[in-house]
């Protein structure tokens, strides 16, 4: 039984959640960029030769295809004859909720990491005397 396997599983979880948070930040930063499409990604199993434990990684980044907001501003350089232009399809509420969930999962992974470290430290403590 190798504790380092468990540590790398938890590390992969933390890395995946951090990547997810990065996507959320990019989306929030580009809320007002005309024509911006929201980025999404799902997690998948990271297959590694020789591994007995299943790690996780973020899959390919996809662009959300829901319709962009149509913003009315005739003075805007990109406005079409009706005075509208395409905004982004980012919904701030959804992004904030996603960020919260990413944080919660990150902390859960961190807790697993810490507990594993404590368990292996307790084992070493046993040998010390």
């Amino acid at each position, binding site marked *: 039984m190798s504790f380092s396997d468990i540590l790398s599983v938890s590390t992969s979880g933390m890395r995946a959640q951090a990547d997810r948070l990065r996507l959320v930040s990019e989306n929030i930063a580009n809320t007002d960029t005309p024509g911006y499409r929201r980025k999404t990604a799902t997690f998948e*199993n990271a297959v590694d030769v020789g591994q007995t434990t299943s790690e996780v990684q973020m899959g390919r980044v996809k662009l959300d295809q829901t319709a962009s907001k149509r913003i009315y501003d005739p003075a805007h350089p990109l406005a079409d004859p009706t005075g509208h232009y395409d905004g982004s399809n980012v919904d701030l509420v959804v992004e904030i909720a996603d960020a919260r969930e990413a944080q919660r999962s990150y902390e859960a992974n961190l807790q*697993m990491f810490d507990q594993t470290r404590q368990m292996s430290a307790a084992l070493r403590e046993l040998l010390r005397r």
Partner: protein
Amino acid sequence: MFENLKVFQMSSAMAQHAAARQTVVAENVANADTPGYQARTVASFTETYDAETGYAAQPGQRATRSAHLHGQASGVAPDIREAPDQGTMSPNGNSVSLETEMLQAADVKRQHDRALMIYKGGLDLLRASLGRR
């Protein structure tokens, strides 16, 4: 007690079992958002431990994947199976509940600490009997 040092066998088996449980819990937590992932659990220690032969399971040890035997030196490992559905299935097919996993993790830590405490107690007893402090 000193003929086969059963207490050491049992407590080290218990610690190994706790480590196997911790692996499964960590995997579940890491895959808490992976679509289609089913949460896994480990058979309890009472189910896997056979007092006669030490850390052994019933013959015909099953595992969901043979790689999950984790290269145990004793050759057998606790049964890892998919957890029964607790109504925590999310729309993307993921059945992991973070709260359940946190509870499992706390229990694993307790089991591991208890096993090490028993082991240490046995060692202290041996040392006292040898006259060393």
